[in-house]
């Protein structure tokens, strides 16, 4: 009998990155069920049901158009400002939902995590996937309005860079997930950051040039242009608008910068998450 052949070992130490994809694969049904739960429970006991997924971005877009385009007079070129804002919000929402959804992973699920083991990475992963579905729904509204504007004769068309679309979605997910995992790990013991997250995300939206174009921001406040340009999320939003509406600033340098940044942020998030998941239940 082979005495030293163990299935696994529970020890205090662990590797820097220990994703254990095999185990996550074994729990794939749980992942699917969590995604389903996140989607289904949102509109239980509501009359409009899944329609709420459409209403939120539409209203935000209307408000942005009113405030930033009509009152503040920020220009969006030939692009209808409503469509312009809808594009920005669709991209921003996915990042933001991933961030806020995962940033509460440890504290929000302490009751489950404290009683049963499953690969902890399932939780943030399920948030990212369920938000991807919501992103898909919001994207379909965007496409709907896009077609409407094309039909009424507006001169808008996507450009060749649309091929990069999947990379952009991946970058949004990686950034939201990476930052969210960092925050969730840092807030298990000291909760100071949770206070910050709420208003920091709404501030971040403005620094990421969501309700106005990057060109407009640089023109109006040139002394702060670095804050807009070096913010990798601006690159995501601006890039998304550029490829779909052919309006905005795009540089390959900025693209690579955002890509490297998102991968690094994800790796850092993963390491911090890994380090925390083992003992967080003692300090949460």
């Amino acid at each position: 009998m082979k005495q030293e052949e163990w299935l696994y070992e529970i020890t205090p130490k662990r590797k820097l990155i220990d994703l254990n994809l095999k185990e996550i694969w074994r729990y794939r049904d749980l992942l699917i069920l969590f995604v389903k739960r996140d989607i289904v429970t949102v509109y239980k006991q509501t009359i409009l049901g899944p329609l709420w997924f459409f209403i939120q971005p539409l209203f935000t877009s209307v408000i942005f158009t009113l405030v930033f385009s009509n009152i503040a007079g920020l220009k969006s070129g030939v692009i209808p400002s409503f469509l312009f804002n809808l594009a920005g919000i669709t991209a921003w929402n996915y990042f933001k939902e991933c961030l806020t959804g995962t940033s509460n992973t440890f504290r929000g699920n302490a009751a489950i995590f404290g009683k049963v083991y499953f690969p902890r990475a399932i939780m943030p992963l399920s948030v990212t996937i369920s938000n991807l579905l919501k992103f898909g729904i919001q994207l379909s509204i965007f496409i709907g309005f896009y077609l409407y504007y094309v039909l009424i004769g507006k001169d808008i068309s996507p450009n060749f860079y649309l091929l990069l679309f999947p990379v952009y979605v991946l970058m949004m997910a990686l950034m939201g997930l990476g930052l969210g995992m960092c925050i969730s790990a840092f807030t298990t013991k000291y909760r100071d950051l949770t206070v910050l997250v709420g208003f920091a995300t709404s501030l971040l939206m403005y620094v990421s040039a969501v309700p106005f174009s990057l060109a407009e921001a640089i023109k109006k406040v040139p002394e702060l242009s670095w804050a807009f340009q070096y913010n990798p999320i601006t690159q995501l939003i601006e890039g998304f608008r550029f490829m779909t509406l052919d309006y905005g600033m795009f540089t390959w340098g900025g693209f690579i910068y955002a890509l490297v940044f998102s991968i690094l942020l994800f790796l850092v998030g993963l390491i911090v998450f890994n380090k925390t998941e083992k003992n967080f239940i003692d300090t949460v």
Partner: protein
Amino acid sequence: MSDVILKAENISKQYRLGTVGTGTLSHDLNRWWHQLRGKEDPYTKVGAVNDRSQKATEDYVWAIKDISFEVKRGEVLGIIGKNGAGKSTLLKILSRVTGPTTGSIKTRGRIASLLEVGTGFHPELTGRENVFLNGAILGMTKAEVNEKLEEIISFSGCEMYIDTPVKRYSSGMRVRLAFAVAAHLEPEILVIDEVLAVGDAEFQKKAIGKMQDISQGQGRTVLFVSHNMASVKSLCTRAIVLENGSSVFEGTTDESVSYYLSLGNDKGADYLRYFNKKEFNQLKFQLINFGVRARTKDYGAPLLRTDDLYFEINFINPKQKNLILSLRFKDEQGNFIFVTTSEKDFQLKEEAQLIHMCVPKSFFNQGVFFVDIQVTNGKKLLFRKKDAISFNIIQEQTALGRWMGKTPGALKPHFKWY
């Protein structure tokens, strides 16, 4: 099949006492600084023994310390100990909810843990949806749940409500459904924390029957934590006893259970079964000591319902004549149950004497009792010591599959039935 399926070596777990605040931050920074220089964690060297009744003198406590054991395939290991002895901490480490501070656990099988029933139940989802969700959380695949769905639903007895959101369930129904899912888990090693103490009598019976199936019929390895000695005895083949975070005894279930039961009595911390402060009275008689023990055993042994109880009173009475002794029995809440006096049998002599009073077996129900001792001369109360002793009666071992709860009432005498 006698190969070792799980092996725990020197596992310890340290916790910090008190709240998380700026004080913990300085310790964290110090620990991080040590780690950065490649030195050992400075705080693993300190730490108090886990004895909850002591005053805290240090910042750290060892919830469990240097516990080692082995479990063989197909064995049902009981883990017993008083509140705060470290049982749940040990289970948490075994089920990978939290990591040990030192030591390691090696295993050859998948561990599924049942530290709570209904983990992850979502109130908005229906019973059926929750069965799938809960099953997946516990480590089952969708196909496995699908295969057993009918069985799970009928075991829970909630067929009518299965497509209603769980938030409309009564708490008992929720527990039934949750236990039904858990009972159909099929891991190689199952870790269970006192989940049997749920549901009504009928369901408890069902649950225990199912537990026996799992452990005996299907030959699965089970680690079982409970305060209910009867269920430990009926389910486990071997047991370890934890006290103040260390393993103090390991052996067969019967040995371990009696060791555990004697723990509280040795120290006299929980029940004062022996009274030996000399009590004087202006009338010059003295109560030297007063205690209760099982007839065939000494004072250290636990009192079972199957023991004849001997109350021993050592008394000196230099002057008074015609004194009558009486014992007043009260239940845990202090309600009087009955009074018994020595009047009919004898009166106290004018000298030191050892008096016995015997309560036959199967008279008290299980539970805690308090006894007042008093002396009268037939007209007037001369002496009374309130709550002089207290004792705990433990349920005898019940047959397998029987209900293990406590029947109501302080007494449960055995009378003849024709």
